[in-house]
């Protein structure tokens, strides 16, 4: 019985190079973290040889003349999926060992693919076609194959019975011992698998316990574990490359409907539903349009990839509903260029099975609610739908939108927090003042006449009002550490408006002077 292991060294870097083939053969370092504090988290051998060290900042790494890219979890995910695909294309029995490593059972493949050596070579070649450079090891033992693939580059074939000898030169940390045991082994001067294998196992177990015994077994290649098989097709991705670019929504909807149908069928077969649909379009490059837009500084340069995620309120697998939602999303944010390739990925989730509680208030059907919310988002834009919440700041009109949860969802999960919220609401009601303030969003630009620093006359929305009484200024300023800091002087004014058509009218208004923009605005009025 033989097992193979495929390991992708410098996995994160390779994942990025795979998406940008021009980087092949170059020194590449990857950054992670928020600018300006991003650090190098991975680098290939050429980059390390050029002097790059992990933990360097972008500025430091910039001095070494290497290609610097951000780390891409998405590309890593794709690369991992490709690695698994590679495994499944060889053998149905594949273990998803780590993001950069898989194990395969080669039993019974001889008649299909020839000798172990031929299989190993095929794996390496196929990996190359997937833009991955891999180490392949074949051994009669799962762990020996895994260790060899991690420890030796290229293709390694370990003859049965010679595993321990073959792997003896590997450092003990390849066995992934715990930090404590690694420290003990280091103190003992035991630094290779061979040295560890040479220790008497009974005495070792007295000292390092079961983990010691396990490591000893690994070092001797005496481990006989079986594979933990991965289930294929977990990612639920559908993809379609188009010969002619699609520009109109209708033909696109037709194609999407087909893909969604397939996705939902796959989900149904596994008793799952889609919790989210990721849409990814590859767009047709258009030199003229790009050039024109690139010169139009007011607009962002278009992306060659169109990506959107449709988060669903509850997992669902009705292709019609899903299509409607996708259409609404596309209407709100249409792609900037004709579409060449469509990739739809369904994030699987458990289908909702519970029925509504007898004593729960009647709430809209989650699917319908989701649809309504999507329509609203379509109308008013992303980030403008949900429950408003006052932000913790002195800035007067600051608020944030919290995602809206369907009442049923909330009632099932957070009865307690509701009670707390209700308590808080009562408290707030107690503290609420009698006057009600109606906020104008955004603030209405105004022209204000001043005398000795106090407003005397205000004009806005074509109205002109004399100040009868003024209270202020009420001064706030903040966020001085960012560029969007503010500094406002507010006034509460009693205004008397004059109009030719109507009778004179009085009103209480709040206006403010924005020192950063050097302009006056009406914040709102008191009812």
């Amino acid at each position: 019985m033989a097992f193979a292991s495929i390991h992708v060294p410098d996995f994160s870097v390779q994942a990025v190079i795979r998406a940008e083939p021009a980087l092949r053969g170059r020194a590449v370092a990857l950054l992670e973290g928020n600018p300006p504090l991003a650090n190098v988290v991975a680098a290939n051998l050429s980059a390390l040889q050029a002097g790059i060290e992990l933990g360097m900042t972008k500025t430091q790494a910039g001095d070494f003349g290497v290609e610097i890219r951000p780390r891409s979890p998405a590309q890593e995910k794709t690369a991992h999926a490709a690695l698994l695909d590679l495994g499944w294309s060889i053998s149905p029995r594949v273990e998803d060992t780590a993001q950069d490593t898989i194990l395969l059972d080669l039993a019974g493949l001889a008649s299909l693919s020839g000798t172990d050596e031929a299989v190993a070579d095929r794996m390496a070649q196929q990996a190359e076609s997937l833009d991955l450079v891999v180490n392949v090891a074949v051994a009669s033992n799962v762990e020996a194959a895994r260790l060899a693939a991690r420890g030796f580059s290229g293709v390694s074939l370990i003859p049965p019975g010679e595993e321990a000898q073959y792997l003896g030169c590997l450092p003990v940390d390849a066995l992934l011992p715990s930090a404590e045991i690694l420290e003990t082994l280091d103190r003992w001067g035991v630094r290779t698998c061979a040295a560890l294998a040479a220790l008497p196992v009974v005495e070792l177990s007295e000292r390092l316990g079961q983990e010691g015994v396990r490591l000893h077994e690994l070092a001797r290649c005496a481990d006989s574990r079986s594979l933990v098989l991965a289930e294929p097709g977990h990612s639920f991705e559908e993809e379609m490359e188009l010969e002619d670019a699609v520009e109109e929504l209708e033909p696109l909807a037709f194609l999407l409907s087909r893909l969604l149908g397939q996705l939902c069928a796959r989900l149904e077969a596994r008793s799952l539903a889609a919790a989210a649909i990721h849409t990814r379009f590859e767009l047709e490059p258009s030199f003229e349009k790009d050039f024109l837009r690139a010169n139009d500084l007011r607009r962002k340069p278009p992306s060659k990839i169109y990506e959107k995620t449709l988060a669903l309120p509850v997992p669902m697998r009705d292709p019609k509903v899903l299509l409607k939602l996708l259409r609404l999303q596309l209407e709100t944010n249409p792609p900037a260029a004709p579409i060449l390739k469509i990739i739809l990925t369904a994030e699987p989730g458990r289908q909702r099975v519970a029925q509504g509680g007898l004593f729960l208030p009647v709430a809209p059907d989650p699917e319908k609610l989701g649809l309504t919310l999507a329509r609203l988002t379509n109308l008013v834009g992303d980030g403008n739908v949900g429950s408003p919440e006052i932000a913790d700041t002195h800035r007067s009109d600051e608020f944030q939108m919290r995602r809206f949860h369907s009442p049923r969802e909330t009632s099932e999960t957070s009865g307690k927090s509701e009670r707390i919220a209700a308590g808080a609401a009562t408290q707030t009601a107690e503290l609420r003042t009698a006057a009600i303030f109606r906020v104008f969003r955004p603030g209405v630009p105004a022209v204000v006449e001043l005398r000795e620093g106090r407003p005397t006359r205000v004009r806005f929305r074509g109205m002109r009002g004399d100040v009868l009484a003024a209270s202020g200024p009420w001064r706030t300023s903040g966020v001085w550490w960012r560029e969007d800091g503010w500094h406002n002087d507010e006034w509460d004014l009693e205004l008397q408006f004059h109009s030719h058509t109507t009778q004179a009218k009085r009103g209480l208004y709040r206006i403010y002077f924005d020192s950063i923009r050097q302009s006056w605005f009406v914040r709102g009025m008191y009812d």
Partner: protein
Amino acid sequence: MYNELHARSAFSFLEGASSPEELAAVCAERGMGAMAMFDRDGVYGAPRFHLAAQKIPIRAHIGAEVTSPSGWRYSLLVESREGYQNLCRLITKMKLRAKKSEGLVLPGEIAEKSHGLICLTGGDDGPLAHALARNDEGANGAAIPETPIERATQCVEQLCEIFGRHNVYVELQRHFCRHEEARNQAALAIARKLGLPLVATNGVCYAGPQQRELLDIFTCIRNHRTLANAGRLLARNSERYVKSPAEMARLFEDLPEAIANTQVLSSRLKFTLNDLGYRFPKYPAPDGKSEMQFLRERTQEGMIPRYGPPDSPAHERARPQIDRELALIEKLDLPGYFLIVWDIVRFCRANNILVQGRGSAANSAVCYALGITAVDPVGMGLLFERFLSEERGEMPDIDLDLPSGDQRERAIQYVYERYGKLGAAMTANVITYRGRSAAREIGKALSFDPETLDRLASLVSAWEYKDEYDTLACHFRDAGLDPNHPRIRKFFELCVAVQDLPRHLGQHSGGMVVCQGQLDSVVPLEPATMPGRVVVQWDKEDCADMGIVKIDLLGLGMMAVLEDSLKLIRDDYAEEVDLAHLPENDPAVYSALQKADTVGMFQIESRAQMSCLPRLRPECFYDIVVQVAIIRPGPIVGQMVNPYLKRRQGREPVDYLHPSLQPVLERTLGVPLFQEQLLRIAMIAAGFSGGQAEELRRALGFKRSQQRMRDIEKKLRAGMDRKQIDAAVQDTIIQSITSFALYGFPESHAASFALIAYASAYLKCHYLAAFTAAILNNQPMGFYHPSTLVKDAQRHGLKVKPIDVACSDWLCKLERYKKGREGLAVRLGLRYVKGLREEIGREIAPQRAARAFSSIDDLKLRVPEIQKSELAALASIGALNFIGGKRTHRRDALWQIERVARRAGPLLERPDDDSQANANENAHLAANANAESGCESKTFKEGVNSDGGAANSPLAAMTTEERLIADFSGTGITVGPHPLAYHRADLQRQGIRPASDLAKIPDGTFVRVAGAVIARQRPGTAKGFVFLSLEDETGIANAIITPQLFRQYHITVVHNPVLLIEGRLQNLDNVISVKAERVLPLSLTRADLSSHDFH
């Protein structure tokens, strides 16, 4: 006219963003005549505010915000001395019963101590704001008023009951906030209803609006938030700055009386810190004698052992000086002070605690006679006025050096016992924001991630010298951050702004203040972190500025070394050495000094001292006094070192600034080296009195002002004109005085230090084993790392034995050996085992004394708290190699400890294990083995597993390199050969010379030297030059790196533990160094060699 009567300084720790000095300065700049400073629960910044205000001048009113149990704060202003005393007592009471930095004042207490205090109703944190906002029931079950305004009225009425109706002011603040104005309207109504006066304040928290940013940062630090998530905890706007009277008048134009009342209230506040009411305690003289009478008797008594019997010439010579001093002491009413210090010294002597006075007290013959100091000022012609003078009108300053550690603590506790908990306290030490702490805390508030913060903090340089590249901007670039990024720029600005602002209060290492009666009525007291200690709210300088007498009980590592050495000499050499009667002019001592063979000796061991010693070639005690004083910033900056050395070597003629100054400068060959000489110059050349001369020194001190300098120059010139000294000489004299006085070292101080230096040199030369053991037991101290001390001692022929559980105690000790020759060796103590807890280390020796350990199992059984990591630490350094009398190697022990630490239980133990069953037999074997070797040095070479006993392991013995790594990482020391010794042949092949060879090589030769860096220095006086000390197995080589070369090799010089340096050898008067031309890293060992850097 408006006066700001409510300001918080940065001494409200994280609630104010400006120093008291800055607040006072801005207040004066804005044209106000007075300001009141309220710090939170204390008067921490009051002395600085008072002194700053005195200079400007404005009136500095003292107050405090005192926290109540409900969280709001009483804003209390001091009207009279009684009020001040009440405030201090109130704060002391609340502080002493709470944990550090906490405490609340109870309503009953405030009623009791309200006299002399005026209460404002406060701002956001005040009682009025709290009463208007709160929802709870009334205090003490009182009837609950229904509306906020009723509650607030009741609250103000309560304040009137406590402080009296005339002493409560309704405070109004306007920071352009709606809620505040609502409160003001309520306050106004209450004031009208109760007939109370209004007062406007601005609740100042910083001097200028820009400092609001710093206050926001402090808010984040205080609340453990970042700016991004602090929300409404941050300030609403930037209005709490010091506003001008015009601005305030505009703000309160509707309430002019609130502005006018600031003037009225200010005029009521008569108290200033000039009226502190401090009195030094009286010494209880026995038999109804007066203090003076008793002091005279003690001095007379002490003169006999110091100066001989009354008719002896020395006694006769000292008599007039003693009489003069006593007369002045009587006149200044200071006998009590001298007796109190004498009493502490007497306690130390009675309890075998080494003690020696230092500082200017060594100028006093009375101090010498009383046994406080050990230098004879009459014999040495020291200037008494440097210590005490009539004109100066301030308390003398006596510093006592004590052995650091427990002995000093005993002396401190004695003072507490003698003067009571409220009569004595330690002075505080204000910890301020410096480079690293500032970078770390501000970075945290700006949401920098921990790794970046670590990187930034580690980059903030600790060099004494800062070149133009040593700026924060450069550090940012080094850390890989773009200094032009807005967030980084803001970070940078804030780091600069926060520098030197107080962060928290610590405890001064040895300064104590005592008071007649109650110290808590002079300054509030707080508990210190250390149990049993009480600290005053002011630091040492503030206490001195306020005229509070302090006694410094300083812990000196070398005193502890001397004391420990004497004990070891007594126990192991069976000899008695009396430090007071050491042989004078010991040839061995002077020979060592002349060769700069001074590693470990007090004050004369540094690289700079060593580079001077062969040129100065000390031949008598006074030369040591000069040696101690000459390597100081004063002589170096004043360019006195080279002229003195040249004159001493006869290469330059001795001349004097003026013939009349010959008697003063004769001893130092015409070059002024000591502060006293400058004072005498002023006295002789310009006719200054002793007091005036001392005044001159103080004027030239750290806080020198241009105006005072000009005044003094005028006086000096006038005096010199009278003495008909010509203008050119006058210029030279004035130049000498002004440039030197700032950094000059007092001769008396140098003499006291020289005594200790001589004693340390004597002990090192004659009792090397005892001295080495003692100095190793008192680390960290001095200039060198313990490994350098050990290597130096070994080069002097001392045998140093490794740490061994079968022989070592917690401390290093002496062992007699008889191999070839008889002698004493130092056995390293378990204190050097990194990671071994002291209580475990101390438990090992008594267990071993009861019965030798038969095995590692036996050790674990009898010291059960020992942890696996501790056993591993011991095994790694070879400390378990000889346990049970068996010879094993380190890895055998490491193999065993893993099993010992993971015992399987008695049922599963293998019968052939070393267990308690075999303990007796093994103990017998062990005892025999120890007796045979007498805890002998190990002839057994590690790595040769000679006996193949039960402890055999399947592990290979450590290689030499592995042992070195284990020694350095486990103890920081190796007793085996120096790491470089293993590579000598290779080094020789590369043409690298050992350190000992350099003395034989002619000046100017191109050489290559290599060694482990034991010290890196970049002194402030050396214009960017870097000095390296490289150690190899033969000794220490010195290298000089120019600023240009340092920039070129910065990383190599700073980060590499072993360096190869190429350059020209400089040998000037046996001062040998290599002027580096190239610096290369050497990778000889991975051992963690340590260096003492950046002195």
